[in-house]
């Protein structure tokens, strides 16, 4: 393997790992807040990509107008998603009902995307272009790397930092953590679980929609973008279920494994990734980072 190839695969792996990490962060936030494993996470990313693509290409909105509008749309979608899949079922006698609801939502979102946006792939222009209007790249050890990849890595880091600051340094974040850890106690001291749950869903969908926006220029926007969630699931488990730090590390590992697996196993790279997952489950089931907070007795 040449240094040129290594550099290209490494950057590709880290970029995809960061996308998976953003998906995984959303997954864990929802699990921690409401105990729901969201099977529609990938579809929400796909919808985010479609929405931003529609704003950017169909409506030709400039970036300074498109991003805030998109974030507001994502937040509203998050509330709608919560009201559709979680809130009516939160006290259902069948505890997995909200999880089943997300499976149904996944189908609704993917079919809905085809109805709303058509079945054909859509292209999203790159954010960083060169003087000729083409994709801007730079040279790294003799290989061309798109600036979009670096943008994704930086944007993902920023998003993770902001989420960290929200939960660790802000009052709203502490309210959300309190409600997630013990709902009845939180209600007793005046924290509205409707507010904190809604805020969590909004945050998750904004995060995942933003990830869809970042990934759209390097892929094409199709309903199959939702398949990215499988790798995010794998990264979440490898990193340590329940730990955001672990999920980030796990997803980076998944991204790099996927990239380097194409060298010898291009047709079976997914099999390689999930073999790694199985090995982790067998040898280190707690994941890379063991969560410090366990379930209450």
């Amino acid at each position: 393997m040449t240094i040129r190839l290594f550099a290209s695969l490494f950057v590709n792996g880290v970029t995809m790992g960061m996308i998976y990490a953003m998906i995984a962060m959303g997954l864990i936030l929802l699990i921690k807040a409401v105990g729901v494993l969201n099977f529609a996470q990938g579809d929400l990313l796909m919808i985010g990509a479609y929405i931003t693509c529609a704003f950017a290409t169909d409506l030709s909105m400039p970036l300074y107008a498109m991003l805030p509008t998109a974030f507001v749309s994502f937040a509203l979608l998050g509330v709608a998603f919560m009201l559709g899949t979680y809130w009516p079922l939160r006290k259902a006698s069948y505890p997995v009902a909200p999880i089943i609801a997300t499976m149904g939502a996944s189908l609704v979102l993917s079919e809905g995307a085809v109805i709303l946006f058509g079945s054909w792939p859509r292209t999203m222009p790159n954010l960083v272009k060169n003087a000729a209007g083409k994709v801007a790249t730079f040279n790294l050890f003799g290989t061309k790397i798109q600036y979009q990849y670096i943008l994704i890595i930086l944007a993902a880091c920023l998003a993770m930092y902001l989420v960290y600051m929200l939960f660790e340094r802000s009052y709203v974040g502490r309210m959300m953590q309190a409600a997630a850890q013990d709902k009845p106690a939180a209600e007793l001291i005046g924290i509205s679980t409707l507010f904190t749950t809604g805020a969590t869903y909004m945050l998750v969908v904004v995060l995942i929609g933003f990830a869809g926006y970042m990934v759209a220029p390097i892929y094409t926007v199709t309903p199959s973008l939702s398949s990215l969630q499988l790798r995010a699931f794998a990264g979440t488990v490898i990193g340590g279920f329940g730990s955001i730090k672990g999920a980030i590390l796990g997803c980076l590992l998944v991204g790099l494994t996927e990239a380097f697996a194409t060298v010898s196993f291009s047709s079976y790279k997914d099999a390689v990734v999930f073999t790694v997952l199985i090995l982790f489950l067998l040898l280190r089931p707690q994941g890379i980072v063991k969560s410090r907070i366990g379930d209450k007795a």
Partner: protein
Amino acid sequence: MKKVLALVLALMMLLTSAALAETVTLGATAPLTGSNQMTGGYYVNGMKMAVDEINAAGGILGRELALKVEDEGADQTTALNATVKLIEEGVPAIIGSYFSTNCMAVLGNVKDSGVVYYANGSNPDISAQQNPYVWQIRVTDNFTGPIMASVAVDTAKITNPAILYTTAASTTLLAERVMLKMEEMGYPVDQANVYGAPEEETNFNAIIAQIMASDVDGLMCMGVSEAWNVAFSQQLESAGFDLPKVGSLSFSSVAYISVAGSAAEEWITVAEWSADILGELDFEIAERAIEFEKKYEELYGIPSVSQAAWGYDCVYLFKEAAERAGSFDREAINAAMAQTDMQGAGNYYKIYDDTWHVMSTYTLANQNLGGIASPFAKVTFR
């Protein structure tokens, strides 16, 4: 009052059955919903154009031809249900799916019912089953593969290619046939330069990085869906790949070219049909093909695609078989299909001894230039 109502009802039923007796219904399955609905629309357009032409000329054996299209959706189960529904409605023939997996799924039902089935998938396994009622109009992958290899070597001057294929059955077979022919021609393909990617893959950058880092002199690509092709082509363009590229049929489709934009330019393709046959050509093309394309563009305002030509030709194959048989009985039409000898819009159809019910005769080599796949050669392989 009740007697009057009963009389009116009886009269309506009589008139309806009389009208039905004047009509023969040809069944068809097409993706009217789901991810393939755009090409499905072209498919149905081609069929409708043929049906209208036939009816304007007096129908078939004195009867008006009606078309009943059932939605095959985007999965085999829906395709199977659509076909079974048509069989149970008693249609004499069905214009089947252009997806090989859907065709394979219904072969058993076709054999049990004796319905004449025009299978428009390209996988040679469809005809290899030797189902007496299945007629394959496409150029099958075992013919296309060697032709692709020859075009790559002779036209694109590729002797050490990278090969990327969708890991679906038909494209895997196509890739194998390409590699076999390359070896026969004295240019064995290095397995380290062969890559597979599933149909739902959207991130090709790792594969592209390896292709760029290798010493290949060109790329050959076998894709199934336009979405896959678009994603790959655009990522290839972004990576700055500037070597010759040869692609399978889906790389010449109007839908792919319109979405991929500049990333589709200069791809050389082997495809049975090109809408750009109205311009100046370096080879002879059938007059029927030109008439079809002119009429299609006049009627629908857009160039056609392969699926439109296939749908159109299947309707005429049915018409001619029914007229030879002198009836709409399934067995009679099926027996008459064995005497097929017809120049259609998309190909020349005949029964050959080298295959079971595979009727095509030639294909086209094209290059995507200025937003359309322009044919530059006609390859007659039998």
